[in-house]
C-alpha cells in the first residue's frame, strides 16, 4: 500500500503567515509566440504582463514551451472537467499532495488566532487575461454586487457566514483585502482552497458591471435586446453565479470573460463544432523556477464527444494526452493497460478519496413508524451488515480489487480508526442471525421471512441509480445475502434525479449512493453526521433541521451533540482542537453505525502520454480537491 502522508498543517499555518518567496530581480522569459508579439508591439513585454512578484511553481522538471494538450469532454454538463484542468485559480490552493494550503492569487494570507479575520495581500500589477488590472476592486465587486446582492445570491452560502452573519469584506488598501466574520470560521481557508472557493477571483468588474443594475443605467434595454426575462437571467447568461461561478456552463461559453486561468476559452463550450479550445493566457501570473512564464502548453483542446465508448477508443489510440474522467472504470482497466504500448501512454494512479464503493443507508427517519422502529434498531443494522459477503462482492463485481470496510476514514487519513472501519464487516451468517434474533425479530413466517413488530414480514425497497460502480449488480448479490437471514429486500433501479427527489422528500425505505469523506473528513462529513439534505440518506429530515431548525425533524440527542461539535469546529481556528472535535463526531458516528458500507473504492487511473511530463505517478482523486488542478497543469509540458 502506498502511503502518502496526510497531515493537516493548516491550523498551525493559519496562525502564522503563508508566504512563497518571490524570485528576485531575475529576467523573465516567455513562450516564443508571445515573445514575437511583444517584439512586434502587439503585446506588452513579459515583465509588464507579470505581476511584481509572480507566483513561482516548483515542479519535478523544467519544461519546454509548445504543443496542444488533447483531452475530451463527454456529453452535457461536463464542465467539471474544464474546472479540473484549467479552472482552479482561487485566493489560496491545496498543495499538490493535499497536505496543506498555500497562497495562490493572494501572495500572503494572514489569519487571526481566533479564525475570525483573514487578510489577503494580492500581487501588485497582476492582470486579467485581457490585460486589464486585477485587484481589490474586483474582489469588492464580487462581495458587494454578487455575494451581498439578494437577487443574485438569495442566501449567502454557509461557508461565507459565521455566527449567523455573512462575512464582511473590506478593502484595506490597493493590494490588501480583509474578510472579517462575526464569529470564528475555522474551515474558511479550506473552503476557499476547495473547488467551491472560486467566487472572489472570478468576477472581473470591468466585464460584469455592464450587466449589473448598480453600474449600468441602460440595463433594461440590454435585457430587452438579449430577449431574457430579467437582469438576473442576463447576468447568468453572461457567465455569472449559479452557486460557484465555474459550475455555470455559461461561464465557459462566454469567450469574452477575462479570467486568471492559465488558458482562456477561445471557442465556447457547447457550440456545435465538436471541439472546445482554450488558449494560453498571455497575462498568466505564474513562472517556473527559472523565471519562465507559464503555462508551458500552448492550447488545451477538448474533443466534445457524445459517447464514452468513443472516448475509450480515442484513449486506446493515443489521441488523448492526459485524462482521468469518463473512461477510467474498473471494467476498462484491462483494455487500457493492454494498449499502453500502441497508444504510447502510461497510467498514473489516482488514490480514491471516497472511502467506500457503496453506502447503503436505511432511512432512520422513515415516515412509516413500523419501518422506522425496525431501521432504528441498531442490532437489526448490525445483523444485516454481518450478512453481507463483502469478499464475494469484490470477487464477482469488482475483479477482486476491493477490501471490505465500513463507512470510515481511510488508512492514510489522520482520523483512521481500524475498529470503525472494520466493525461488523465480517461475513458471518450465524452472527447475523444472532443479532437479528436479538433485535426482536426471531419469529418467521411460512416463507422463512422474519416478522417485524407489527407481526408482518420485514420487507423493504432499496432505491438505486445506475450511475457509478455497478451498484445494481452489487445489490442483487446483497438481496440474496439478506434472503439467507430471513429479510426480504427488493431493489428498484431509478433515474438519479428521481432518486434525489425521493430522498429529499423522505419517501425512500433505503437508498444507495457513493461515499465521500474518506480523506476530506472536515468538508465532506455527510456520512458521519447528517448535514446534507441530499447525500445523508439515513436522516434527510435531520439534515434539513441542521440547515434550518424550522424545517425537517428534530433529531435525537446524539445527532444534536454532533451538530454542536461541528459548530464548534467552525468556531475555532486551532487545528488540534478541530481534530479533537472531529474525533468526537466520528466516535458518535461509529457508535451509532448510521449506514452500512461495503468495501474500499478501487484506486482509479489517469492516462498520460509518455511525452507528457510533470504528472505525478500517484495522486489523489477528489472533488473538493479537484484533481488534477492542484497538481499545477500550467506546468505540465509536452516533450518530443
Amino acid at each position, binding site marked *: 500500500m502506498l502511503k502518502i502522508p496526510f497531515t493537516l498543517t493548516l491550523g498551525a499555518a493559519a496562525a502564522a503567515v503563508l508566504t512563497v518567496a518571490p524570485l528576485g530581480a531575475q529576467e523573465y522569459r516567455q513562450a516564443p509566440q508571445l515573445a514575437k508579439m511583444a517584439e512586434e508591439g502587439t503585446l506588452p513585454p513579459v515583465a509588464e504582463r507579470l505581476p511584481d512578484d509572480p507566483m513561482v511553481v516548483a515542479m519535478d522538471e523544467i519544461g519546454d514551451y509548445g504543443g496542444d494538450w488533447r483531452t475530451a469532454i463527454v456529453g452535457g454538463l461536463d464542465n467539471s472537467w474544464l474546472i479540473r484542468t484549467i479552472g482552479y485559480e482561487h485566493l489560496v490552493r491545496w498543495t499538490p499532495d493535499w497536505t496543506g494550503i498555500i497562497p495562490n492569487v493572494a501572495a500572503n494570507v494572514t489569519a487571526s488566532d481566533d479564525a475570525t479575520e483573514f487578510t489577503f495581500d494580492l500581487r501588485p500589477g497582476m492582470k486579467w487575461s485581457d490585460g486589464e488590472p486585477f485587484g481589490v476592486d474586483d474582489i469588492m465587486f464580487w462581495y458587494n454586487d454578487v455575494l451581498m446582492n439578494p437577487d443574485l445570491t438569495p442566501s449567502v452560502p454557509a461557508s461565507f457566514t459565521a455566527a449567523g452573519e455573512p462575512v464582511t469584506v473590506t478593502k484595506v488598501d490597493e493590494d490588501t483585502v480583509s474578510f472579517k466574520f462575526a464569529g470564528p470560521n475555522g474551515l474558511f481557508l479550506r473552503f476557499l482552497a476547495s473547488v467551491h472557493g472560486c467566487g472572489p477571483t472570478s468576477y472581473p468588474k470591468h466585464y460584469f458591471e455592464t450587466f449589473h443594475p448598480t453600474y449600468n443605467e441602460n440595463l433594461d434595454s440590454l435585457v430587452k435586446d438579449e430577449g431574457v426575462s430579467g437582469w438576473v437571467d442576463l447576468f447568468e447568461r453572461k457567465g455569472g453565479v449559479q452557486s460557484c461561478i465555474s459550475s455555470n456552463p455559461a461561464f465557459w461559453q462566454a469567450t469574452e470573460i477575462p479570467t486568471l486561468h492559465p488558458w482562456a476559452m477561445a471557442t465556447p463550450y457547447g457550440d456545435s463544432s465538436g471541439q472546445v479550445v482554450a488558449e494560453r493566457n498571455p497575462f498568466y501570473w505564474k513562472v517556473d523556477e527559472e523565471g519562465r512564464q507559464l503555462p508551458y502548453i500552448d492550447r488545451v483542446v477538448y474533443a466534445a*464527444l457524445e459517447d464514452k465508448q468513443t472516448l475509450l477508443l480515442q484513449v486506446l489510440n493515443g489521441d488523448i494526452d492526459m485524462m482521468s474522467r469518463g473512461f477510467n472504470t474498473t471494467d476498462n482497466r484491462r483494455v487500457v493497460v493492454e494498449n499502453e504500448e500502441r497508444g504510447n501512454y502510461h497510467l498514473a494512479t489516482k488514490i480514491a478519496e471516497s472511502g467506500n464503493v457503496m453506502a447503503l443507508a436505511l432511512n432512520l427517519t422513515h415516515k412509516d413508524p413500523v419501518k422506522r422502529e425496525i431501521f432504528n434498531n441498531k442490532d437489526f443494522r448490525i445483523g444485516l451488515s454481518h450478512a453481507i459477503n463483502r469478499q464475494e462482492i469484490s470477487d464477482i463485481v469488482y475483479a477482486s480489487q476491493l477490501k471490505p470496510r465500513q463507512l470510515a476514514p481511510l488508512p492514510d487519513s489522520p482520523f483512521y480508526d481500524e475498529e470503525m472501519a472494520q466493525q461488523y464487516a465480517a461475513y458471518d451468517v450465524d452472527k447475523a442471525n444472532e443479532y437479528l434474533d436479538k433485535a426482536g425479530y426471531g419469529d418467521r413466517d411460512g416463507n422463512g421471512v422474519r416478522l417485524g413488530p407489527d407481526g408482518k414480514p420485514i420487507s423493504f425497497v432499496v432505491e438505486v441509480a445506475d450511475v457509478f460502480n455497478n451498484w445494481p449488480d452489487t445489490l442483487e448479490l446483497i438481496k440474496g445475502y439478506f434472503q439467507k437471514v430471513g429479510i426480504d429486500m427488493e431493489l428498484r433501479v431509478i433515474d438519479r434525479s428521481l432518486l434525489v*427527489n425521493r430522498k429529499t422528500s423522505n419517501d425512500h425505505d433505503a437508498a444507495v449512493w457513493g461515499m465521500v469523506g474518506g480523506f476530506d473528513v472536515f468538508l465532506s462529513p455527510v456520512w458521519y453526521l447528517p448535514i446534507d439534505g441530499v447525500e445523508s440518506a439515513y436522516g434527510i429530515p435531520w439534515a434539513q433541521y441542521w440547515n434550518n431548525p424550522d424545517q425537517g425533524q428534530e433529531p435525537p440527542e446524539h445527532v444534536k451533540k454532533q451538530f454542536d461539535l461541528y459548530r464548534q469546529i467552525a468556531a475555532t481556528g486551532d487545528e488540534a482542537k478541530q481534530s479533537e472535535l472531529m474525533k468526537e463526531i466520528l466516535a458518535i458516528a461509529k457508535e451509532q453505525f448510521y449506514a452500512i458500507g461495503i468495501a474500499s473504492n478501487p484506486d482509479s487511473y489517469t492516462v498520460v502520454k509518455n511525452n507528457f511530463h510533470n504528472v505525478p505517478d500517484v495522486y489523489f482523486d477528489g472533488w473538493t480537491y479537484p484533481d488534477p488542478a492542484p497538481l499545477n497543469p500550467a506546468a505540465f509540458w509536452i516533450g518530443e
Partner: protein
Amino acid sequence: MAIYIFKRILLMIPTLILVSMIAFAIIQAPPGDFLTTLMSGEAGETVDVVQIEAMRARYGLDQPIWVQYWKWISGIVFHGDFGESFEWKRPVNELIWDRFGLTVLISSITLVFIWVVSIPIGIYSATNKYSAGDYVFTVFGFIGLAIPNFLLALVLMYISFQYFGQSVGGLFSPAFVQAPWSFARVGDLLAHLWLPVIIIGTAGTASLIRIMRANLLDELPKPYVEAARARGLSEFRIRVKYPVRIALNPLVSALAWVFPALVSGDAITSIVLNLQTTGPLLYRALQSQDMYLAGSLILILSVLTVIGTLLSDLLLAWLDPRLRAEV
C-alpha cells in the same frame, strides 16, 4: 383541390395544439425537474437548497403546469421564441439552429443515397426474381435490416481502430475542426461523411429494396402490363412508366416520416459516431429534463411530421390519378 388543401391546413391547427400539449405533458411527466438533475450532480458537488429554490422561482418551475405551458407556447406563437435551455443557458433557437445545417446535410445526403441505391436494386430484384443477383441483394438487404445502425457503427469504429489505427467520430479531422471553410475543408468533410451516410442509410436502403421489390412484383403480372407489352412498347418504357410509378407510392407516403427524420437525425448513431446533430441534443435534453429544449425539439419534429403528411398526400394525389379522383 384548393378547398381540399385549405381544409387540410385548417385541420392541422387543432392537431398541432394537441401535439404541443402532449409534448409538454410528456416532458413534465417524469418526477422532478431540471433542478433535481442539477442537484444530483457530481458526488459532493452540493448545490445550496435556498439557491435552488430561488432558481426554481426564477425559471417559473414552481408554477402550475398550464402556466408554464402558456408561457412556453405563447412565446413560440407570438415571438418565435422557444425559451431558454437550462442546461446550456442559451436560447433554444440558437442551439437548434447551430446544429440544424449539419443535421439536414447528413440526412438529405443519406436520403439521396438510400433512393439512388435502393430503387434500381429493387427494380432489378423484382424483374430478375430468384436470380443469383436477387439472392445476393436479398441477403444483404436482410443483414442491413437486422443489424441496428449503432451496432454497425461500433463495429466499423472498432475495425478502423484495430486495423487502420484511426479514430472514427466527428466529421472533420482535428486539424480542420476550427478551420474556416475552404476546398481542403470540404474535401476533409467528404472524406468523413461517407461513413455516417452508409451507416445511417443501411437499414433504410434494405427496407426500401424490399418494399420496392414486393410492390413491383405485385404490379408486373397485372393485365395492363401485358396490354402495354402487346402494343409493342419497349420493356424499359413499360416498367418505368407504369408499374414502377405505382410501386413508388409507398416511397412517397413514407415522406411524412422522412421530414422529421431529416431534423432528428439518428440519435443513437449520432451519439456513437459523435456527430454534432440535433439527435444527441434531444437525447441529452430528455435525460436532464431540460424541458424547453426537449419540448421545442419534439414540437418541431411533430410539426414536420404533420407537414410531411400533408405534402406526401398531395404528392400522392399528383402521382396517382385514382387518389385524385377520391379527393
